[in-house]
């Protein structure tokens, strides 16, 4: 493969945002007909680098060569003209438009404006590569994986030769991921060049031909995937030796007690659509109960019901104070539930918006939990400030100080603040959703560690996760939701990824018929 003329060469690229150096003197080559994985932790500058290739940003210094000739890419349109297209983590689609309207958006075809002809062309591309998209479907009616497909078709429609995908599998189920990878391989065999940005090593192994590693905005090395081991890649990415296994201490059987018992829980949303259907399970002290499922299968509703934030259609949620006293949580005031030690830390897709106020500083965000304490009409700022400092210290939050608005922190640090505050409340039940959403390996491990410590303290932890590998390594038991129903509860130590994946898409698992 080497020795050929690279399709794209980046030479000595640097880019900074204010005082932050996002990329420093990065050089790399991309060859035709290969799948290149760009690997690195959060904030290592992978996305910024590719944004410069796709025209979102302009490099401060350095040069981009295409087929050996220097080019200037000042806008996404310039990038299209050079055959480069990028699929961003947050899809760039207009919700009220159809697939076709989104695909032709911004194009200046010669001749008249003919949506019918465009739809036919879209259909042909879909048939050629085996995509499953209706050209006339509105985007707001589509699933996440369909939206992603529209993005890919959009690039192909424009005749893109080089496709950049930014963490394409973050929102997909394992089955959808397999389908995506199959399509990407098809496209590679068709001569297209594909760059995927990822921090998931399994994907690098499975899909890529070559891997380039970035660390703190700098190029640290590259490997041919087939010749590299996962451990080597991790070490290169993190810069030091790391252990890849998540600890899973056995639960203390001695104190094990049923803490939360959910029976026949049914929840309908405001439109009357059933979000949870007859769900029953128990959560025990000193264990981590994982909840797996395609996003939107009722995870959010389940946690909110336990925290008292959801209107419940029918069923019961019991909280065991000790073996004699049992409290019914349904209908109870959320404040009172929180007072009993049930805390919820939900990290939504945009990472802010639930639990933290972006424009307020760390201290004020800590106060959101404690401002009702005490009888004085004035709030106590000293203690929250102390707590904020403690969280910053303990969790290695990277911030100029506790007076910085949280929206200025990077995603990982925001999450640490959120989880740190909830844990500081000394909970008996910790409801944690997507705690590591978008976090890099290092920060994720810190969070797993925190959860394990809570488990050791006898807290009943309920962990909603996206990454199946993590769920399998971290959780003692895994409850799988499928369309609001319990598809099954499996032992985290003995189950396999395939089994859970099938249960996520089909009640009770089993092979496709």
């Amino acid at each position, binding site marked *: 493969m080497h020795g050929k003329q690279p399709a794209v060469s980046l030479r000595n690229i640097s880019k900074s945002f204010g005082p932050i150096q996002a990329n420093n003197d990065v050089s790399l080559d991309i060859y035709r007909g290969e799948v290149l994985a760009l690997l690195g932790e959060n904030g290592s500058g992978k996305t910024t680098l590719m944004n410069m290739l796709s025209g979102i940003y302009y490099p401060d210094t350095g040069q981009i060569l295409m087929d050996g000739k220097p080019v200037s890419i000042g806008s996404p349109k310039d990038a299209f003209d050079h055959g480069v297209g990028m699929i961003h983590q947050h899809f760039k689609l*207009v919700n009220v438009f159809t697939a076709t309207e989104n695909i032709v958006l*911004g194009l200046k075809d010669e001749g008249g404006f003919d949506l019918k002809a465009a739809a036919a062309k879209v259909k042909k591309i879909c048939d050629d590569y085996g995509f499953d998209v209706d050209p006339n479907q509105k985007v707001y009616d589509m699933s996440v994986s369909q939206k992603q497909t529209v993005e890919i078709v959009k690039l192909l429609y424009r005749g893109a030769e080089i496709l950049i995908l930014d963490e394409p599998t973050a929102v997909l189920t394992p089955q959808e991921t397999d389908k995506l990878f199959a399509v990407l391989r098809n496209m590679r065999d068709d001569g297209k060049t594909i760059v995927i940005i990822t921090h998931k090593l399994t994907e690098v192994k499975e899909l890529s031909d070559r891997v380039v590693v970035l660390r703190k905005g700098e190029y640290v090395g590259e490997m041919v995937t087939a010749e590299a081991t996962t451990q080597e890649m991790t070490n290169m990415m993190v810069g030091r030796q790391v252990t890849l296994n998540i600890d899973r201490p056995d639960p203390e059987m001695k104190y094990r007690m049923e803490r939360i018992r959910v029976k026949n829980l049914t929840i309908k949303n405001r439109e009357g659509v059933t979000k949870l259907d007859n769900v029953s399970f128990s959560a025990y002290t000193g264990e981590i109960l994982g909840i797996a499922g395609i996003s939107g299968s009722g995870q959010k509703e389940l946690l909110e019901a336990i925290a008292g934030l959801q209107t419940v259609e029918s069923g019961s949620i019991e909280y065991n104070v000790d073996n004699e006293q049992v409290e019914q949580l349904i209908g109870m005031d959320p404040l009172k539930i929180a007072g009993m030690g049930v805390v919820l830390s939900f990290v939504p897709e945009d990472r802010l918006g639930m639990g933290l106020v972006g424009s307020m500083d760390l201290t004020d965000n800590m106060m959101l939990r404690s401002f009702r304490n005490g009888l004085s009409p004035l709030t106590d700022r000293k203690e929250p400030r102390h707590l904020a400092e403690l969280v910053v210290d303990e969790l290695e939050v990277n911030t100029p100080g506790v007076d910085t608005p949280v929206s200025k922190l990077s995603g990982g640090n925001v999450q640490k603040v959120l989880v740190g505050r909830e844990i500081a409340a000394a909970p008996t039940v910790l409801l944690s959703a997507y705690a590591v959403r978008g976090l890099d390996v290092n920060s994720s491990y810190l969070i797993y560690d925190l959860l394990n410590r809570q488990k050791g303290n006898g807290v009943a932890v309920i962990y909603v996760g996206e990454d199946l590998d993590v769920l399998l390594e971290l959780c003692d038991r895994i409850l799988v939701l499928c369309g609001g129903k319990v598809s099954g509860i499996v032992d985290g130590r003995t189950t396999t990824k395939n089994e859970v994946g099938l249960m996520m898409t089909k009640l009770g698992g089993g092979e496709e018929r």
Partner: protein
Amino acid sequence: MFDFIISFIPRAVAQGIPLLYGCTGEIITEKSGNLNLGIPGVMYVGGICGVIGSFLYERTLGGAPINPALGILIPLISCIVGSMLMGLIYCFLTVTLRANQNVTGLAMTTFGIGLGNFFGGSLIKLTGADIPSISLTATSNLFRTTLPFAGSTGWFGQVFFSYGFLAYVAILIAIGASFCLNRTRIGLQLRAVGENPATADAAGISITRYKYVATCAGCVIAGLGGLYFVMDYANGIWSNDAFGDRGWLAIALVIFTIWRPAASIPASILFGGLYILHLFIPTGTDLAVKELYKMLPYIVTIVVLVLTSLRNKRENQPPESLGLPYFREDR
């Protein structure tokens, strides 16, 4: 009853045309994601600029007969220039400087009405008349010229042909805007800018250009509504504050029509009818009841708001990024 309807419809239409201009202009503006609450001010400025132009022209005539072409073109161009300047100020503040759109819009309304009343007052001083108004009869007669066969076709002509040319222009603009928004590439791109500017930007569409052009075009269209009001509806008589709350009604009409220019043609006539209904309903001497009837257009708007939010269809929602500034490197 038939005679009543025949005399009611032309008056409802004449009331509705300024609203139709304002509404079409605001829809085009809002489709680009700019919520221009300065429309009442822009319409006011459009009106006064036309008045200034034709006032100065009529004075230079000094009794000589008016040249029809100049008599129409001078106020028309003054009006277009004046309202476009308002649009440019609004765009410069909200798009280039990313000021808050609501605050800017409300300021533009206050500014526009103040500007109109200031120049209106100055011109009234110049005429030296006893009554506080300016009368531009010659110009108004040009704007009010109807089709030649309007008078000879009975009730049909009264309902359909008895208006000045600006009324037909308003309807043509609304139909054109509807076609442009829904059937052309430019319309698709404009809607994308208002729905999701980041997406449009990534597709290579210039957000700044679309916002500027759409907002300025919207302001020009709305300004024509002010011109129509003075020159046609009010018989060329300008008096301060006569325009009333028609600008706000035009914005209410945008919501009423759920951002569809074609629907705003019948809707504006309906609103015009509701606006003057109190003149036609015998209420005796009780003036309070008349005031209640004046609420009708607003009540209808609220009812429509409730109904559309109940139906909760995605297409019936305002453009997704309406009122939000766009900055590419914002995180």
